[in-house]
């Protein structure tokens, strides 16, 4: 298959409503269960080890009109929280049996229990992911929290999460993440051959199918991409930072590139690429996963990294991807992203890295102003 055919398949997969994705999988897995995780990170390995399908609950994008959720959440709350709840009210997630939220921010925290109250038939769990990343007891605590989640699944769905199954799932997700890392590395090397909208299509589709299936077409894509014919252009290499939870509209990603950028790093769907290296493959699997959460997590605005400054991870990304600038893309009203923006921007300024900010909402549909701003920024950099 050509990259275009694979990517077409990916776009098709991720354009389906979440409930339809769940039902389609269930049609071939009678009695199977589906669990969707709200951003940023949840242990898909555990869901998979239970024989269930892990999916991503990512809001309604441009497709859903709010008719119920805006009466529950005020105007100053981000879109992804509201539109995710709306998916529940409109029955668009029917077929998904469980939902996992975590302590990424105060909105997600409240959303979790409001979800539970409004949809009492669904399984809902709220993971407490440690914000302390340096004390000795933290990895053990994290492992216990993951065990608690697994026990919740076992009780709710009458299934088992065995250690061998979890060990196997860790291997499979290691393999999936290795492919995704390879795609990102490829884009750093040859961004002209893999646009961000293409990369995003592959990434997003990987959240809609079992990992084994995604690995299949990711391998095909990785093999075919280098053969693509595209010449490098004179564009600004940028890191996009801030879209780790609410996902920007595709139009915004397009505009970024059309306005003269190569996006060489980003934090889109960060939770599905959470670990910087493979989770260890021997030892008790819950402990390995817990320790990896604490010690191998990517820098993220939703997690306190006690060992380094907020900007360190971002600066490292800039250096590693040979980027020339950073474009901050916080979702409107997203407190973690908006707070981090200040410390990150100060760090970039100390390091002499130029930056700009573009706020977005998942439903944003006109991009002309943004296009002009980015073009001006790019011009000021390229023709300086």
């Amino acid at each position, binding site marked *: 298959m050509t990259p275009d055919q694979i990517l077409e398949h990916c776009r098709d997969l991720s354009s389906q409503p979440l409930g339809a994705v769940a039902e389609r999988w269930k049609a071939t897995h009678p009695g199977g269960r589906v669990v969707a995780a709200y951003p940023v990170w949840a242990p898909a390995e555990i869901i998979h080890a239970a024989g269930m399908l892990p999916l991503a609950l990512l809001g309604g994008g441009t497709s859903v009109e709010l008719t119920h959720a805006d009466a529950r959440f005020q105007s100053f709350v981000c879109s992804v929280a509201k539109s995710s709840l709306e998916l529940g009210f409109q029955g668009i997630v029917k077929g998904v049996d469980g939902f996992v939220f975590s302590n990424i921010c105060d909105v997600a925290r409240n959303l979790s229990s409001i979800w539970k109250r409004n949809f009492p038939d669904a399984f809902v769990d709220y993971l407490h992911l440690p914000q302390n990343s340096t004390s000795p007891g933290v990895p053990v605590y994290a492992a216990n929290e993951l065990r608690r989640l697994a026990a919740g699944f076992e009780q709710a769905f009458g299934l088992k999460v065995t250690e061998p199954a979890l060990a196997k799932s860790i291997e499979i997700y290691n393999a999936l993440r290795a492919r995704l890392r390879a795609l990102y590395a490829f884009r750093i090397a040859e961004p002209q051959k893999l646009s961000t909208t293409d990369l995003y299509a592959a990434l997003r589709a990987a959240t809609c199918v079992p990992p084994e299936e995604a690995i299949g077409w990711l391998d095909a894509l990785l093999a075919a991409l280098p053969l693509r014919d595209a010449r490098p252009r004179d564009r600004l290499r940028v890191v996009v930072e801030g879209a780790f939870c609410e996902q920007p509209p595709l139009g915004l990603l397009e505009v970024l590139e059309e306005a003269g950028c190569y996006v060489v790093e980003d934090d889109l769907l960060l939770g599905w690429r959470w670990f910087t290296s493979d989770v260890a493959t021997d030892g008790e699997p819950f402990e390995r996963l817990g320790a990896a959460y604490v010690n191998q997590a990517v820098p993220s605005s939703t997690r*306190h990294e006690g060992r380094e400054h907020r900007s360190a991870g971002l600066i490292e990304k800039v250096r590693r991807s040979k980027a020339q600038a950073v474009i901050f893309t916080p979702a409107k009203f997203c407190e973690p992203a908006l707070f981090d923006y200040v410390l990150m921007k100060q760090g970039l300024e100390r390091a002499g890295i130029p930056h700009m900010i573009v706020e977005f909402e998942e439903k944003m549909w006109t991009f002309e102003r943004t296009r002009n701003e980015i073009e001006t920024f790019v011009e000021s950099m390229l023709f300086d």
Partner: protein
Amino acid sequence: MPAQVTERQYQGKVHEHSRRLMSDWMGRLSRAEAEGQPTGALMISGNCVELLLACHILPMFPEVTALQNAIRHKSLPLILKAEQAGYSSDNCAYVKADIGLFLDGGMGPGKPIPFPTITVCNYVGCNVYVKWFEHLADLSGSKLFMLDVPFARTPGEPTQADVQYVVAQLKELIALCEGITGRKFDIDELREILGYAARAEEGYARSKDLCKAHPAPFDAYFDAINMMGPINVLRGTKEAAEFFDVAVAEFEELVAQNLGPLSEERFRIVVEGPPPYPYYKNFRNLFAKWGAVAVASTYSTVGGIWEWGFRHDARRPLESIAEQMLRENLTNRSITARYQQIKRYVEEWEADALVIHSIKSCRLFSAGQGDMRDYFTRELGVLTLLVESDLEDPRYYAEAQLRNRIDAFFEALEHKKLVVGAAGRRGAGALPSEATV
């Protein structure tokens, strides 16, 4: 509208006493740097102030600084300074006012608000705390200790493992503090401090319990603020324990005389959400003129929920500190657990209505309060008013709009009371929910 309701201003004594204690503490804080007294920044909610006291570290609370600046109408220029530096108009304004104070030259070496020697982020539910203290540690250069407290998410909590997880971190914090002060930690000193803490908690709980009286002896939202300094900031000191002895005696006396904060208690309300500090008095007046008295409030429990009986326990010092942080405060509980807290208030304190003050800054409190209103009106039939402003940023306080909504609500409530009328005093459940404004 019936005859004018007036304020009795009885609360002078408790208010004055609290003010004196708080300004003594502020005085010590302003002298700390000159006297070589180490300081520790802490958050109000579910804090471990007793531990810092036992470590001879003077606690300081950026939230208190922020609210004091708001009450003194000084918050807006500070917020604007922070926004100029890159903070968003959508970030919690408490943080912005605090950072703005630094940018304005009002915090740091040689200033009345010193830099903390250590920044202890007691992460109990509010994710903004993590950000705030990262920023504070960044600008002050002080050591940041992130005390991770598992969120209260299942009914069987806190588990022994949760308690031990927090205790292990508390021990780490003690070692850090010993390093700062060069002084050995003495567990007996902590026990004594916890004894004082428990006495203050008992007094605070008793004061709130007295608000079950008709009329309530004080306003458990607007006047409770006088007790929140002693209970959250000074808890563990002898002075705070004695403050509550005095307060309880005074409130008991008022109950005996059938006196409340207003000339007449016409409506008993439960208030959810923080107050608008920049317009505290104005906001209060909007309710007082209707004879509405808060008999219970959620804001008064951010630091700790003492009314259901939990006390620090000198026999289990670190464990009981951990338990309080884990479970016995509003912030580390879910919003739906708060629905149950409010429900109890409405029932046991015999309230007529629920007032939700929705705060733009504080998504911890407010994100999803529409769902809360839905629960109370639709499922419980409790009359509920939802109004919006902010606790720190005066730009979000629209008095005319608030007045219209509050007046319309109490008019409806009054009408319902008349209709339900002669059958005697009614609990909230007796009033149909369609009167919701």
